[in-house]
């Protein structure tokens, strides 16, 4: 809104133009400052990965001779690929199932609301307020009894359930913003509910669905509590891999940073590549 109004105000007078420019510069500076503050820990982690262990724990400095020894040590010790494949399977698997369940759910809530829809939505979100550790023992016991401990299936189930409220909420918001007339037109032409969803709703809200999916992938990728508690080795994802580099006796910050950089690299690259779609999706329907 600010940008739009400053653009229209620009030709009116030189002083107006200058103040608009100043405003824009301020916003740019503010935007960059916030971005840098958010990115700084990641930047520092990447930097620490290229230091020696003693340099990593020394007084913070930007000047040091970079080394790959931590990356070599990390590579030499454990199978990064196995952990990474587990992360990919679990993050994308859980996102697939979450979308599969959430799309019909959000469709029903957005287009066929009842008087309890709002309450149901709030109740779904309230499940996110319970600390995970509160349900650790029951889940652990169930998983033990059905043989899901240390399996990707188990983790996919937990992550699907964990992300479902957020996914439903986001999809519900996107679907609600879609004009109902389009769906009605489809229905007039004899489309079934499934056809309506597959051929009208999904293509039209694709940016929203894509950004919801990406968010779900990122949340699953970064999740550490359940992955540390429910897996041992076969299904352990990258979060468990990172945790293994901490040491009670011995220096480990450089190796931990190297391992963390390797663990976040795939998701960082994915986020980078899809940032346009993500921003488009997240602001979908915000401006009409």
């Amino acid at each position, binding site marked *: 809104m600010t940008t739009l109004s400053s653009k229209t105000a620009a030709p009116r007078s030189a002083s107006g133009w200058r103040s608009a420019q100043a405003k824009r510069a301020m916003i740019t500076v503010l935007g960059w400052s916030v971005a840098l503050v958010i990115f700084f820990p990641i930047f520092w982690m990447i930097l620490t990965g290229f230091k020696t262990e003693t340099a990593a724990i*020394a007084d913070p400095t930007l000047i040091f001779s970079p080394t790959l020894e931590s990356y070599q040590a990390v590579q030499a010790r454990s199978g990064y690929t196995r952990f990474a494949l587990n992360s990919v399977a679990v993050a994308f698997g859980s996102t697939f199932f979450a979308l599969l369940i959430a799309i019909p759910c959000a469709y029903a809530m957005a287009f066929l609301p009842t008087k309890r829809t709002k309450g149901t939505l709030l109740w779904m979100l309230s499940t996110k307020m319970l600390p995970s550790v509160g349900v650790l023992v029951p889940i*652990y016991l169930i998983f*033990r009894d059905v043989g899901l401990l240390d399996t990707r299936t188990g983790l996919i189930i937990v992550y699907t359930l964990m992300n479902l409220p957020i996914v439903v909420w986001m999809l519900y918001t996107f679907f609600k913003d879609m004009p109902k007339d389009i769906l009605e037109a489809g229905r007039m032409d004899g489309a079934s509910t499934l056809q309506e969803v597959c051929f009208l709703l999904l293509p039209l809200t694709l940016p929203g669905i894509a950004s919801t999916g990406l968010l779900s992938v990122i949340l699953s990728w970064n999740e550490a509590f359940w992955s*540390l508690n429910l897996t041992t080795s076969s299904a352990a994802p990258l979060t468990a891999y990172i945790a*293994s580099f901490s*040491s009670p006796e011995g220096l480990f910050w450089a190796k931990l940073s190297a391992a963390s950089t390797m663990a976040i690299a795939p998701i960082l690259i994915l986020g980078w590549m899809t940032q346009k779609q993500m921003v488009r999706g997240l602001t979908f329907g915000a401006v009409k």
Partner: protein
Amino acid sequence: MRLARHLPVTTLAAAIAISGHAQAQTEITVATVNNNDMVIMQSLTDAFEEAHPDITLDWVVLEENVLRQRMTTDIATGGGQFDVMTIGTYEVPIWAERGWLSPLDNLPDDYNEGDLLASVRDGLSLDGTLHALPFYAESSMMYYRKDLFENAGIEMSEQPTWEEVREWAGELHGSEDGLAGICLRGKPGWGENMAFLTTLVNTYGGRWFDEEWNPELNSEEWVSAIQFYVDLLNDYGPPGASSNGFNENLALFSRGNCAMWVDATSAAGKLFDENESDVADSLGFAPAPIAETPKGSHWLWSWALAIPASSEKQEAALEFITWATSEEYIELVGETQGWTSVPPGTRESTYANEQYTEAAPFADFVLNAIKETDPNDSTLKPNPYVGVQTVNIPEFQSIGTQVGQTIAAALTGDTTVEQALDNAQRATERTMQRAGYIER
């Protein structure tokens, strides 16, 4: 509609397909921490598997506290996720008493159980039966920089006292740019500052509990020991000492920022390694300082390998832990990784090996320090508990950490030592009452 009908089946099939779970021969899962000696053990997996072709090893490496919590959850619920666990002297007797660990009364003859150091062996036994095998053991001692001592004309005593240490720290503090007179643990935690502080209180004649389990945290001995510690670190310690644990002090000392450091003997190998330490040439060792009594002035800790009772692969697990704690394994590490990398403090034969004693001049200090500790008699006045730097009861983890936090607050100046110890005393009394050790 067809798609809708087949959806559940398709999704289930997809879930199964992406969650492939392979299993081969007898695979045992070993849970461990990321200490250097354990990293070496992992790197020797091939050597074990070659000698035992019917067993494969699967490693789970976790952060110490996460590992402890995972193992507790798993054993308590009978999850059976682990076949071998890396645990310490503190947990072994407690877990053994609850029936969580398999008793190791069927060790093979060639294991040479008699070769294990007696104090370490006792620490891992319940009623005389081993419940875990020692992988490496450590005590505490003093490290100092010989070059600084020589330049200042100070001679290290054979058995230094804390008063001497204070004098030396005062003389050396600031004599080089960024040099602290002494580095000690300040980071709160039962395994961090409290491990060191309990030995300090022991040597000042104090104890955690009297014979009736009444806490004695605001006794005269505790107050003088903690006041000494707070003054010493505030006057001659490094900046921000309250956030320094073992690792931080190791980094400080190895970079030459501390004139003295009292901590685990396991640091010796790292400080002596020229690739990791700037002070390898000038490194001096001395026994941990004493005050009123030498009793309990240095600790005893061992990392040990145990088999949870819930494991279904007891035999294979026993094969592995007897291999990883054997004389043969120690030889293998010495030959392949260098003799300073040998896991110390477990066997007499390690210290009889000339190759080791030549490569590791600190060997005798470590051996003596470990041999001199007696977890059953660690304080001047009698106490009802087992443990030198710990009290081996389940409640100690939370008590130790809470007391550690109040003392860290005294170190940073947020409270006085008396206030901190009064608070610690009240909190410990409440915990002990709730746990039923003492009456309300």
